[in-house]
């Protein structure tokens, strides 16, 4: 007989500890959201002709599996960079209007990866916990959308290069600000 089976006493699952919390969602929701957002980001930014290409499908599966199995900020960043690369190859220059919904989707993937990294699939997460800081997220996404709209407006006007440079400088300043500083 299988020795593992002999000592497997858990014919029925063990009882749970009752905790009284608000409405919750299970932890496996986050990998699901990750899968959906990752495939959406990669397939929509890739050319439609690639969708059946075995190489693309392999890359798609690898990246999605990577972000699922190792849900770290680094893998999420890698996936976003890959999305950016695809967007560069397929998007309409100088600014693809799909960025208006791709940017919020990228943020969703980023947060879902964070949650998946911290919450095991069997855990429960309070819905109010998910919604904490929604104002901050809304403000960030709103700012991005405004920037995108402004950039879109600017790209249709003459003097494009100067505007791009200006925007790039502003974003560089933002990136420098986010750099960790020693206290």
């Amino acid at each position, binding site marked *: 007989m299988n020795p593992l089976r002999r000592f497997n*006493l858990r014919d029925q699952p063990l009882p749970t*500890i009752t905790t009284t919390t608000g409405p919750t969602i299970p932890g496996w929701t986050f990998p699901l959201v990750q899968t959906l957002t990752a495939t959406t980001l990669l397939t929509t930014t890739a050319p439609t002709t690639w969708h059946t290409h075995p190489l693309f499908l392999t890359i798609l599966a690898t990246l999605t599996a990577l972000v699922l199995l190792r849900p770290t900020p680094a893998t999420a960043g890698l996936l*976003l960079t890959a999305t950016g690369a695809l967007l560069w190859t397929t998007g309409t*220059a100088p600014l693809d209007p799909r960025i208006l919904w791709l940017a919020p989707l990228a943020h969703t993937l980023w947060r879902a990866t964070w949650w998946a990294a*911290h919450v095991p699939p069997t855990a429960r997460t309070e819905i109010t916990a998910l919604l*904490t800081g929604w104002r901050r997220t809304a403000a960030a996404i709103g700012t991005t959308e405004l920037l995108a709209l402004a950039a879109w407006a600017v790209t249709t006007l003459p003097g494009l290069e100067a505007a791009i440079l200006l925007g790039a400088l502003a974003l560089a300043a933002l990136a420098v600000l986010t750099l960790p500083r020693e206290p």
Partner: protein
Amino acid sequence: MTTPTTDRPPAWTPTTTRHAATATGLVLLAAAVLTGRPDLALLAAPILLTTLWSATPPTRPTTAHLHQPAGETHAGQLTATLTLHPAPTAPLTHLRITAPGHRDTHTVIATPTTREIPLRLASVRTGPQDTFHIALRAYDTSGVWEQPPTDLHGARRLVLPATTPLGPVPLPHALRGLTGPHTSRRLGDGTELRDIHPFQPGDNPRRIDWRTTARRSPDLTTPYTRRTLATAEATAMLVLDSRDDVGPDIRTWRNHGTRRPDDPTSLDLARHAAASIARQLIESGDRVAMEDLGRRRRPVPPASGRRHLRRLTHALALAHPLDDRATSHTIRPPQIPSGAIVYLFTTLLDDDTTRLVRAWRTLAHPVVVIDTLPTLHPIHQPHLRLAWRITRLERDQRITDLHHTGTPVIHWATHTHEPPPRTHLQALARRTHHHPSPTPRTTRTPR
């Protein structure tokens, strides 16, 4: 009750989220500048913005304390309240709550302000029980800062057995004392009339029956009094066989594996049975003593009263098998007060208890054996099934022997379709009541 608090929680530490966000932002930004495509930079903008927002860590750590209710705990009431005092900008708390025999519980909850989380275990076990162990982690809003896990340990708690109201229970044949709830056959202070007798020193003058005196001694030289039967009390000795504790799953016997906390074990049943019988006896005014076979310590002396019942309940809850040695060494028959009835709570899995019963029966103590073996779960392993078959045959033989010596055996764990143990106890009480002084029937000597 103890209220453990997270002592000096560690400071907030940055996570890799921040570095990853900056790196991704810079890469996409560089790509945007090199390719002249602002949309690439915009892809990383929300991430950079939210990360920037959480540049500084929360000012103070999140703390918690576990409050366990004071007072007595009964089976199924293992509860506690976790109070969280979160840091101002850290509204996420991740709790990992573990308890012996329970599945680990992971919960992420929102803690915008101080919050209380009620916790409850599904355990129906009694006796000393380990309770909650909570690991706590806190995150800030965007997950950039986290507080390393801190631990909270709930105190070990003593769970008292519950009691079930019973009807009449068997009493000893010989009642003792001069006061108590039962009428004895001795002369004394009571209410039941015994006879009319000439007045003796010590008789109460108010008990003089003047009508009889006038008839029998018209010149009033000898007053006659009504004498009554004394009242008496019964003494019962509860003997708890706590040398072993077996659950309904035969694979967990002899301390293998983990026992499910929602299955009462033999000792839980014994505690429940003993507490119920003690309550019935004490509520009717009798005296109850207790002896623990698993331990060498002074027995609980016979007494009555509500406080004594509480002491008995505590002593029952504290009875537990000490080590493996306790089951192997032979036990000495505990001393029983003369004229007391013995209630023995045992699983009847070894010969020691039947030997004890025989010794008590020789001393003319009535004995009631309460079989506390739980109803076993189905056994799937052939070798265990064979082992249990042999053990069961031996046990059945012991029970038959006990029946032959006139010792009733009452199974405490009964199926729903069987009559409950109180019915058996009532029938037994009725039988001993009708036959006040039966001698032990030893028609067939065992083996």
